[in-house]
């Protein structure tokens, strides 16, 4: 592992990231900085490459070229084993939660501790209860994912992402499929947990403008690169035509492409 640690205000730094699936250049030179201790939200039309970008940040895909620095470590060329060490730094909330449906909420949240640490049963139970309480799911330990609502599943998945006390939290469209009230609640929850655990969060969302209530930084992605970046007020002030059109929901002129399916599992 050749990653040298440097004092860096950005927890995640992406430089000129490129990835091509077949003939489609999905990432076309992405540059991004996610400041430490803040929530950075990546927005953009479907097919702009934001989910693929997130799959690079959580090390499920390797880029064709470019660099990703997570907490001072350049991760794109690390061996799988060294990547696993980097993975301890972050928790990930998947779009549909990705809870293991054969396990109860308790076992799902405890899973990373059971599999990857040598903590005692009591210690694990204590940590799980604390974390479930933090996401507002106390008393749900023995339910199975199929027995709780979509919003609760996301809370449980968030608890699982937080259970190892990561420094960085990644969220893939955490409010997809939720009504506006639930969306607001999840945004509140993301903000609360971010502050409580002092996290750097990076979130992919197409829930504009609702997601701005929780974002410190916004990055607007279009055509495989960042078209505009800044704080929410900077973004609103910028008279960027593409971004304005995106906000107004006028898809015309935005290059709509089908979302690429990166052939299943990571190799």
């Amino acid at each position, binding site marked *: 592992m050749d990653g040298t640690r440097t004092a860096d205000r950005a927890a995640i730094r992406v430089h000129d990231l490129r990835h091509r699936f077949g003939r489609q250049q999905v990432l076309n030179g992405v540059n991004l900085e996610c400041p430490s201790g803040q929530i950075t939200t990546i927005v953009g039309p479907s097919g702009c490459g934001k989910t693929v970008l997130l799959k690079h940040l*959580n*090390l*499920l895909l390797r880029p064709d070229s470019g660099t990703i620095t997570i907490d001072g470590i350049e991760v794109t060329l690390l061996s799988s084993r060294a990547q*696993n*060490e980097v*993975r*301890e730094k*972050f928790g*990930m909330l*998947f*779009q*549909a939660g*990705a*809870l*293991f*449906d054969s396990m109860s909420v308790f076992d799902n949240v405890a*899973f*990373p501790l059971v*599999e*990857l640490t040598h903590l005692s049963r009591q210690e694990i139970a204590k940590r799980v209860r604390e974390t479930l309480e933090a996401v507002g799911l106390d008393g749900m330990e023995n339910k199975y994912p199929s027995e709780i609502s979509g919003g609760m599943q996301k809370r449980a998945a968030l608890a699982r992402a937080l259970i190892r006390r990561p420094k960085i939290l990644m969220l893939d469209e955490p409010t997809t499929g939720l009504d506006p009230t639930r969306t607001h609640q999840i945004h509140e929850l993301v903000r609360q947990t971010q502050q409580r655990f002092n996290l750097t969060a990076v979130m992919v969302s197409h829930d504009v403008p609702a997601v701005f209530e929780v974002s410190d930084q916004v990055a607007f992605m279009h055509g495989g690169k960042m078209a505009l970046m800044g704080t929410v007020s900077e973004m609103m002030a910028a008279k960027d035509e593409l971004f304005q059109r995106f906000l107004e929901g006028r898809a015309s002129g935005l290059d709509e492409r089908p979302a690429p*399916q990166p*052939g*299943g*599992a*990571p*190799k």
Partner: protein
Amino acid sequence: MGLVSLIGRIGAYVIDTVTSVGDFVSFLASALIYTIMPPYKPRLLIRQLRIIGADSFFLIALIGLFTGMVLGLQGYNTLARFGSSGALGTVVALVLVRELGPVLAALMVTARAGSAMAAELGSMQATEQIDALSVMAINPVQYLVSPRVLAGVISFPLLTSIFDVIGIMGGWAVGVLLMGAPNGPFFNGIAQNMGAHDIATGLYKAIVFGLVVMWVCCYKGYHAQRMATGVSRATTEAVVLSSVLILLWDYFLTSVLL
């Protein structure tokens, strides 16, 4: 231009085929390597032994019984024409132990456990549960595939042995009790004519089938496409390809081991 694009298309097809065969083989290789690498999770292996092995017991016993019974019936009728119904035990036992036991047991476990496995892994892939494992720094092949492959290699020979024994009893019940073949020669024939080599042949086959079935079913499920039809397609392909490979390997193994 037409010729160039034709050559291009053939090239793309060849590259695709070679790549997917390579993926298929390296999938098994990594599953096997992770079987011997720590961390060891006996809990996962035991769970799969239960699902593939123990839960298949009654199905295997039932199919074994009826296979043996039909062998007893057909065997007696055929042998009686030559006046050699005393050889019934030998025929039933050799056919079961060398051929039908391993093949039918493997086909039944494919239908029962293999299909379920492909569907389970397929829906885990579709709902990003496999990605979730990777992101949590847990190797999904080691966690999901290795225990299944190992459990297959262990349980297939055991299930085959059960199939054989129950099948022979079924053949005896029909041939001797029902049709009236002589009882003594039935068992004497087995004792005299079936050697350790015959039994070993059947068990070697069962081990290979266990490996092949789990390999195919896990591979197909693991690489299911992330859409509604992806899981059903993976399951179908897993069962069809497993069944075809069982019969192909059966021929080659028979010709080598005979």
